[in-house]
Structure formats: structure tokens, C-alpha cells
């Protein structure tokens, strides 16, 4: 007792630094990357650059990483998210072309994502399949189906130059913006920030959040405390599916035409990497939404900086990989202490 008390009193600069490293490692990485980015690009802090970062995050893996944080905190993994986006974007555009209503398309994407997530969750929870295998199977299936219906060509929003009135309207989803005191705030940026706050609240302040951590930390103990472990597993996959659906809507709006074979390619890896660099334990039980949120931004900053610095295009992946390794190694070293 006295020992631990004195530990608290002795929260000196050194202790604070150590705590910063172990509990807020994602902040340290974020600031480091920010410093590098600023030195490489003097225009980094321009509003245009910042808002683009957020918009690009939201239309790709931003929200998916939030769901992935839940999945990983529950001790699971979902590698079907990229294929889900491909499937839902492709079919979503078909729905849009057929109905001419962007909201019906959104509804279709959300419901479709929920269904795929529900399938993932059911296979894992009630089918007792390892999450990696179940979501791998769903991944290949989704990709195959969308490839089949795409027949190699892209799914394009009908209309092009002028004819269809919903064409411009749908374009605005990802490219439009609010005007706040003269600043152009892209819709996706607003959505991403609101979702970040919402998921942070869910994880920290609701029963669902606490149960997710509990299941990931020790499923046995959680069950004996009355937590319905299977339901939690299904829930996290379903939520991630819904986020994939939402992302598909924004993603297809930002591109206006998606290719079945390449849409959402490697989204799962980007999302998992963002979660990892954000300090979430891959073994489950520990992690923060804010870490993943910043993790997503970090990856966008890295790739943008590499482009700005004219790094060889095909090598950018290797550089991102090196950064993940360094960031996660740092976390592990701190955790051991």
C-alpha cells in the first residue's frame, strides 16, 4: 500500500513520460508523424490539406477502422471488410441507377452490410469458427459475387455528363461541403468526426463497450459475470458490417464508378494497421477509439507525404509497413516495462 502510494506521489516528469508512452503511445506516434509531414510539406497545415485528409479517411477506411477497433477489442478479427465494400458499392450503384434515389441506396448499403456482418458474427459465435477463417470465407465469397455480376467492367453511376438528375446529387455526398465561417467542411469529414465521437462514447460509457472489452480480455470471466458472449460477438461484426455499408455509400460517391476486382482492395489491412498503430492490443481487451481515429489519419498523412515527397510509387507500401513495425514495436517495449 505505502509502496503504491509513494509511486503515485512520485509522478514526476519521468513517470509522466512513461505513462505517456505506455497509455498514449498513439499520440506519440501521431506527433512524430506530424512533425515529419510538416517538415516535408510546408503547406501541411493549410485547411485544404487538412480537410482533404479527413475526407479521404472517411471515404475509405476511416469508419471501418472504428468498427474494427470493436472487433479487435473483443478478441476477434474481420478481414472481410474490403470485399464487403466492393460488394455493397457495386450493388449499391445498381440500386441507385434503378431507383434514382441516393437515400434508398444508403439504406440498401446499410442493410446489406448489417446482413453480411450478421453472417460473420453468427459463423464465429454460434458456428464456433475462428474469426479469421469465417471472415476469410465471407471475403472470398463477396469478392466472387461482385466480380461475377461486374463481369470485369466497372459499376458506374448512370448519367455521366448531364442526363440523370441524381448523378450530381450523389456526387455531392462525398464531394460536397458545409460552409462554416468561410471554411469548406466536407460532408464526409463531419460524418467521420461524429462517428468517431459516437464510437468513443459507446466504448467508454455504455454497457456494450464495457462488455466488448470484457469479452476480449477474458471471455470466460465475462460469461460468468452474465455477459452474453455470443451476442457481443454478433454485435461487433454487425456494427462493422453496417459501417462497411456506410463507407460504401461514401466510397462510390467519391469515385462514381467502382471496379469489382479492385474496389476496397486491402481495406481490411489498412483498417487493422490503423487499429494496431493506434495502440489497440491484437489479443483483445485493450484499445481506444481515439487511437484508431488518429491511426487512420496517420496513414493518410504518411501516404500523402510520400506522394508529396515524390517517393517511388510502388515502394510506398514498404515504407508504410516499416512505420507500422516501428510503432507497434515501440508499444511492445513500453508494455513489457
Amino acid at each position, binding site marked *: 500500500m505505502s509502496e503504491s502510494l509513494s509511486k503515485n506521489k512520485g509522478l514526476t516528469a519521468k513517470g509522466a513520460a512513461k505513462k505517456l508512452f505506455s497509455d498514449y503511445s498513439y499520440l506519440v506516434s501521431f506527433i512524430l508523424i506530424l512533425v515529419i509531414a510538416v517538415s516535408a510539406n510546408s503547406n501541411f497545415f493549410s485547411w485544404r490539406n487538412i480537410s482533404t485528409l479527413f475526407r479521404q479517411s472517411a471515404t475509405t477506411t476511416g469508419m471501418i477502422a472504428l468498427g474494427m477497433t470493436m472487433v479487435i477489442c473483443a478478441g476477434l478479427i474481420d478481414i472481410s471488410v474490403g470485399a464487403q465494400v466492393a460488394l455493397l458499392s457495386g450493388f449499391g450503384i445498381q440500386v441507385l441507377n434503378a431507383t434514382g434515389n441516393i437515400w434508398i441506396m444508403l439504406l440498401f448499403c446499410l442493410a446489406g452490410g448489417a446482413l453480411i456482418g450478421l453472417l460473420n458474427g453468427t459463423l464465429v459465435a454460434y458456428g464456433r469458427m475462428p474469426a479469421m477463417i469465417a471472415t476469410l470465407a465471407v471475403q472470398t465469397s463477396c469478392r466472387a459475387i461482385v466480380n461475377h455480376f461486374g463481369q470485369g467492367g466497372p459499376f458506374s453511376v448512370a448519367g455521366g455528363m448531364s442526363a440523370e438528375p441524381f448523378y450530381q446529387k450523389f456526387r455531392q455526398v462525398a464531394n460536397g461541403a458545409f460552409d462554416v465561417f468561410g471554411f469548406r467542411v466536407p460532408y464526409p469529414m463531419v460524418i467521420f468526426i461524429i462517428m468517431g465521437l459516437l464510437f468513443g462514447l459507446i466504448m467508454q*460509457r455504455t454497457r456494450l463497450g*464495457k462488455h466488448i*472489452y470484457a469479452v476480449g480480455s477474458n471471455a470466460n470471466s465475462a460469461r460468468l459475470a*452474465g455477459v452474453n458472449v455470443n451476442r457481443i460477438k454478433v454485435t461487433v461484426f454487425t456494427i462493422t458490417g453496417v459501417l462497411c455499408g456506410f463507407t460504401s455509400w461514401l466510397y462510390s460517391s467519391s469515385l462514381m464508378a467502382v471496379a469489382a476486382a479492385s474496389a476496397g482492395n486491402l481495406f481490411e489491412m489498412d483498417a487493422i494497421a490503423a487499429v494496431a498503430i493506434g495502440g489497440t492490443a491484437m489479443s483483445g*481487451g485493450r484499445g481506444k477509439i481515439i487511437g484508431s481515429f488518429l491511426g487512420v489519419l496517420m496513414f493518410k498523412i504518411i501516404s500523402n507525404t510520400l506522394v508529396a515527397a515524390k517517393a517511388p510509387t510502388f515502394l510506398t507500401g514498404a515504407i508504410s509497413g516499416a512505420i507500422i513495425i516501428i510503432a507497434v514495436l515501440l508499444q511492445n517495449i513500453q508494455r513489457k516495462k
Partner: protein
Amino acid sequence: MLTRMEQIVVDFGPVRAVDHVDLTARSGEIVGLLGENGAGKSSLMNVLAGTFAPTEGRILLDEKPVHIGNALQAMHHGIRFIHQELNLCNDLRVFENMYLAQEILMPGGLLNKKEMAARTAEVFRRMHIDIDPWAVVGDLQIAEKQLVEIVRALLFKCDLIIMDEPTSALSTREVNNLFSIMRQLKNEGVGFIYISHKMPEIFEICDSYYVLRDGMLVGQGNIADTDEKAITEMMIGRSLANDDFKTKPSFTTQVVAMKAESVSGENFSDISFALHKGEILVFTGLQSSGRDQLADALFGVIAHTGKVEMSGKPLHGGIRSRMLKGLAMVPRNRKERGIHNDLSILDNTSMGFFNTRMKSLLISRKLEKKRYERQKTALAIKADNPKNLITSLSGGNQQKIILGRWLETGADVLIFDNPTQGIDVGTKFEIYHLLIRLAEQGKALLIFSSEFPEIIKVADRCIVMYKGRINTEILRADMTEEDLMYYSTGSNLEMEEAGETEETKKEGLKA
């Protein structure tokens, strides 16, 4: 080989598990190491086997100080530790387990399975054990697994074998077989350290003894110079704290809080009892008696047949629905089944509450803190910052957090499954007082325990299980540790089988 441990100290955080203990073991000698659960026996032996380093003290082999950093180094020094819990790989074959990490290879690096299986079979033959070396370990009975574990130690040349309660899952015949193997090895010059708290075994097989209590060495000598009573007194310690409980009043009322009628399930059958408000009813029995499964079944963790009622309303379904009816269970094995390593003290405390009593959408930090502070005061939990991880606490305080979790659900009937497992003696006594206080408040308590001294202290009534059935019921006034052991081991039934009827007359057995 002369093995000497000098002034060994083992600290686990703030808890001192072993306190300046000396121990000597010679070739051809069987040393009995005795003590209650948590007395420090296993910790001391883990030091010798290199599982963890002592905080202080040293180990000498043939008078030369040695450093034993891990299990492999211990084996090189000729020391083998047969653990109480089985350390076998269930998916591998028997001989593969035997030679794990010390495989016999053919030239070229491939495994020489035939040779390993043949040698395993040879040792089995010598020991009169009938197990197929090619069997998959997962398919074996518990007792067979235990034998595999033991024989694994005998496969390689060794000078000292440490056995941690090797007979807990063995039948009398298997125990006798084990003892004859031990005697044979003893004559070949192998030394043993034998951990057990089964007195008759100690007196049958051991040459000398060491008794530990609360981590300290409280007695040693030759078995020939002592008797069971003297050793029991050393183990239990006649302290004032024990006497506190002698005058424990009964708070039992006539109101039935929980009733079970012919409940059966995996490993237990036909269990009936009535638990009253204010009563402390203890279920005891050996590891294999079905005690664990009964506790789980009552709480809805595993399935059961038969009827369970609480205050006249039937209990069925899973855990949460039983919690909502006012049932709580503090589970056994805190590490695996109780705590969440990655969560804070606060979250660990609230886990049960979130599930059953939280009405609002968002968790109120203020109320959460208030609930925690209430339990902290009530249970005298020693913790400074509730946001710290629960693993920053000592075992006793972790257990108190788990108790607090369940008290906070406001349950009327509380199941405590091995509530004082792996915690220090001071906290144990605090928990005993807490249990009695809860009974006084009118709660109904159902305790599952294998620690006889604990049962004697708190129980109003004790039901002894044997092989999945109720063997007998003992009231507080008639309770002795000897009787509890006698009925737990089913000695009365074995006599009955042998034709003696005296015991059946005495107890009017239900089985």
C-alpha cells in the same frame, strides 16, 4: 545428490509466499512437504524447479551453489517437478508427450517414433501401467494422464523428483502402485519431495517431513518421531483467530431461499437440498466429486436436469436470467474465470452491475465511483487509484473486487465457489467474517470449498459429496476435519462394500 535450499524468500508483489525457509533432501530419501493450501509449498518447489527465481536465498546441490533459471536447467541438474495440474499436450500422443523437447532423433533429424514409443512402453511395463504409448493424451482418463505425467519424470535419469499432490485423481490401487514405484526408485538412490495434505499417505511413504504455514517453516523432523495430530496442529496453527469462529452464532431462519430437487448433470446426480435465509451451507468433496459442476449448474453455466427454485419461483435458463432472479456466483479460479486482466479495478467491480441493474443508456462515472467506494469500504480493499488495472492488486484484493462485483448486484442467494483460493491468510479471515456478516443480513450462502479448516469456521451445515452424489450431511455441532475427510474420500462407503455396516447405521446415508 544432496539438495539444500537456504533461507528462501519468495515475494509476489506485496504478498510474501515463502519466508526464509531451509530445506534439505538427500538421495534415497522421501521428504514430505506439508501445509495447508496457500502455505507456500508449491511456491517453494517452483523455486527449486526453476519456474521462478527466489527473491532471496540460494540453492546448493552437493554443497555447490547453483542457479536454476528454468525447467530445462533444473532437468539438467537432475531435478524433475511433477506438477499438480497436468502439463500435457492433449493433441499429442503419449510417447510424444513423454519426449517433448527431448525427442530422440534419427540420423538426418527426423523423429525416431518407434524408439520413443518402445522406450515408453518399456517404462510402463516396469511400472505395471497399462497405457498404449500411441494413444492420444486427450483420450485418456484423468488418472491415466496423471500417470503419464509421473512416468515422464521417470523416463530420464534424475536424482530428485518433486511431486505436487500426485494422488488427487488416483484410486487406492493406483496409489499403491505409485508407492511401489517410488520405493523401487528410492532404493536406486533417487530422492523425493512429496507434497500432500493427505496424512495417511505421508505416514506411509515419507521418511522425513517439513511443515509450512503462512510461508514459514513451522516444524521438521523424522516421520517416525511424530504423529498425525502433532503435524495437523502444526499445519493449522492453534491461533486465537481460529477461536473467533468457535462461538459463531447461527442466523439460519425457517424461510427457504433456494431449493433443489434431484438435480443431475455432468458428473453429479440426484442432488437435493434446501437452503434457508441466513444460512451458510457448504458443499465439499474431492476434486472429482462433481462439486465444481454442481456449482456451475446451479448458476446456469452448464446444463442440468431436475428442479431448482428460488423463493418458490423456478430457476432455469442461462446465467443472466438467474442473476435477474437474485442469484450471484463468485466463481472459482479467479485468474481464469473471475478477473479481466485488461480492465481497470473500477470496470472489474462494475461488470455484474452493468449486466443486471444498469438502467440508463450511459454509464454514470459518478455513480460508478460511488458504488466502488461503497464496496471498497465494506470489504476493506487496499487500492489507491481505481483506474489502475486490476492486476496491480494483490490476489486477496483482486478477490475482494470480485466479491464486491457480486455484492453490488444485490443478490439474495450467493454462491461462493472456492472463495479463498490462492489468497493470503489474513484476507481469508476477513472473507470468513464477511461471509458471516452476509448471513447475519439475511442472505443465503452456498459455499463450495475443499478447505476443511475453512468449512469448520463458517459452515452452519455441510453436505459432503462423493462421486457425484451426496454422501452425508454434517451439522455444525458435529463437524470435525477428520469426519469431513472421512466422508469426502468415501471411506464409509468403501467399508460398507467390505461388509461393515456400522457407519450406515450411524448416518442413515442417502446414497
